[in-house]
C-alpha cells in the first residue's frame, strides 16, 4: 500500500505494529520459559519469568497511550482505523497472556518436591502447542495473513482437547492419592491457564481477520471440543 501524504502517520502505524510484535515476542518467551521452569523445577527461571509480566504491562500501557494520541490527532479511517483498533485490542490480549504465563510461573515453587513427572510431560506438550498457536497468530498479524489467522482460529480445538485429557489425567492422580490433591489443584490451574492463553490466541486471530478483511468471524462458528463434566 502506498504511503500517507503525512509521512509521520505511516511511521506511527509501522512503529505501532512493530511494538505489538515485540510485545508478542515477550509473551511467547514467557509461555515457553514458564513451561520450561515447570518441567525442570527451575525456581530461578520461574521467578524471572514472573517478573517479565511488568515489562508486558508497561508495553501495553505505552501502546494504549500512543493509540489515544493517534486517534485524537490523525482520526484514522478504513484500513488505518482497523489497524489502530486491532493494535489496541491485540495489545490487551497479549497483556492477559502475560498475566496467565506469570501465574503459571508462580505455581512452579509450590510444586517443588512433588512427583508429578508424568503430568508435566503432557503439560509441556500442551504448552508447546499453545506457544505455537501464539507464534502463528503473531505471524498472521505481521504478514496481514487472514488465511493463517483462520488456521489458528480453527486450531484451538486441539488445545481444548489437550486440556480435557490433562484434566482427566490430573483428576485420576488426585483420586488415586489424596496427598496429590494440593499439587493436582495447581496443575489444574496451570492447564486452565494454558487453555485460556489458547483462547486469547483465537481472539487475536479474530482481530487479525477483521483487520485484514473488514469482516467479523463469529465465535459461535468456531469448532470446539465439548467441555468435560467433573
Amino acid at each position, binding site marked *: *500500500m*502506498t*504511503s*500517507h*501524504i*503525512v509521512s509521520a*502517520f505511516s511511521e506511527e502505524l509501522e512503529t505501532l505494529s512493530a511494538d505489538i510484535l515485540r510485545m508478542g515476542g515477550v509473551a511467547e518467551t514467557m509461555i515457553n520459559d514458564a513451561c520450561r521452569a515447570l518441567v525442570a523445577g527451575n525456581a530461578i527461571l520461574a521467578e524471572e519469568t514472573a517478573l517479565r509480566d511488568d515489562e508486558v504491562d508497561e508495553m501495553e500501557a505505552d501502546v494504549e497511550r500512543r493509540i489515544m494520541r493517534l486517534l485524537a490527532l490523525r*482520526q*484514522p*479511517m*478504513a*484500513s*488505518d*482505523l*482497523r489497524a489502530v483498533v486491532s493494535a489496541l485490542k491485540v495489545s490487551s490480549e497479549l497483556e492477559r497472556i502475560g498475566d496467565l504465563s506469570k501465574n503459571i510461573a508462580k505455581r512452579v515453587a509450590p510444586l517443588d518436591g512433588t512427583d508429578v513427572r508424568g503430568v508435566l510431560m503432557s503439560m509441556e506438550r500442551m504448552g508447546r502447542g499453545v506457544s505455537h498457536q501464539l507464534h502463528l497468530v503473531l505471524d498472521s498479524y505481521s504478514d496481514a495473513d487472514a488465511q493463517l489467522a*483462520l488456521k489458528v*482460529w*480453527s486450531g484451538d480445538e486441539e488445545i481444548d482437547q489437550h486440556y480435557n485429557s490433562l484434566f482427566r489425567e490430573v483428576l485420576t492422580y488426585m483420586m488415586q492419592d489424596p496427598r496429590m490433591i494440593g499439587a493436582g489443584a495447581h496443575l489444574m490451574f496451570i492447564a486452565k491457564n494454558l487453555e485460556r492463553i489458547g483462547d486469547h490466541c483465537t481472539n487475536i486471530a479474530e482481530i487479525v481477520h477483521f483487520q485484514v*478483511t*473488514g*469482516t*467479523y*468471524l*463469529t465465535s459461535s*462458528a*468456531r469448532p470446539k471440543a465439548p467441555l468435560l463434566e467433573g
Partner: protein
Amino acid sequence: MPDTSSHSATTASIATATKVDCRNINVFYGDKQAIFDISMAIPGRSVTSFIGPSGCGKSTFLRCINRMNDTIENARVEGQVIIEGENVNTDAVDPVLLRSRVGMVFQKPNPFPKSIYDNVAYGPRIHGLARTREDMDAVVQNSLTRAGLWEEVKDRLGEPGTGLSGGQQQRLCIARAIAVSPEIILMDEPCSALDPIATAKIEELIDELRERFCIVIVTHSMQQAARVSQRTAFFHLGKLVEFGDTEQVFTNPTDDRTQDYITGRFG
C-alpha cells in the same frame, strides 16, 4: 469455511425509498467532460454525502439535482434526474419551481441584504405560500425554529441578516431554504467557513432535518461525512467510484481508490 458476518446488516434498516434517481448523467463544460455517466439512487429522509478530491465533480453533480448548472454558460447536462417519478432535467420543467422543491445551501453564508425576517419570508412571498401576515409570521418562526436560530434572533427580526455571526448566517440560510417547504436540500460544503462550534450546530441541525427532508451534502471533511450521513458517495475524476452505507465506506471500502482517499494516501 466459518460464517463471516459483515456489518452492513446493522445499517440495512437505514435504506429508504429513492427520492432522486439520477440516470446516466454526463456533464460538459464546453468540450471538457466533467461528469462521466453517473447513475445514483439517492434515498429520501436521510443524508447522503458526496466526498472526493477537489475537481472530482461532486459539486457539479450536486448542482444537476436543482439545475444550477443551467446558470453556467456552455455547461451541458445529459441524462435524467428523476424526482418522484418525474424527469426534471428537461426544458419542460421550470427551474425556478424546481428550486422551490430542491433548496440549496452554499459554502459561504449568503443572506440577502435584508432583515432576518425578510430573508426567511422572501421565498414564501414570491411563491405565494402565505396569505396573511399571521401566516407569514408563523412560517418565519417555524423555519427559524427548525433551523435552531429562533431563540437567538426572535427579539431582533428587523435587524439585517448580514449582521449575524457566520454560523448564525448559515443557519439563517438553512431557515430560508426550508421556509418554502422543499423536499430536498442540497448543501455544498455548508460548514467549511464555520468554526467548530457553529459546525457542530449545523451538523446537529442536519441530523434533525433528515426526518423531513432528503439531504445531500458535499463536504471536504471526511469526519463530517461519517458523522452526518447514512450514505456516502466517493467521486474521482468525474466518475462515481463507490456509493454505499457510510459505515461501510469508512470502515471497509470496497474500492482501492476510496481506501486511498479516505486514509489520506492521495488527494
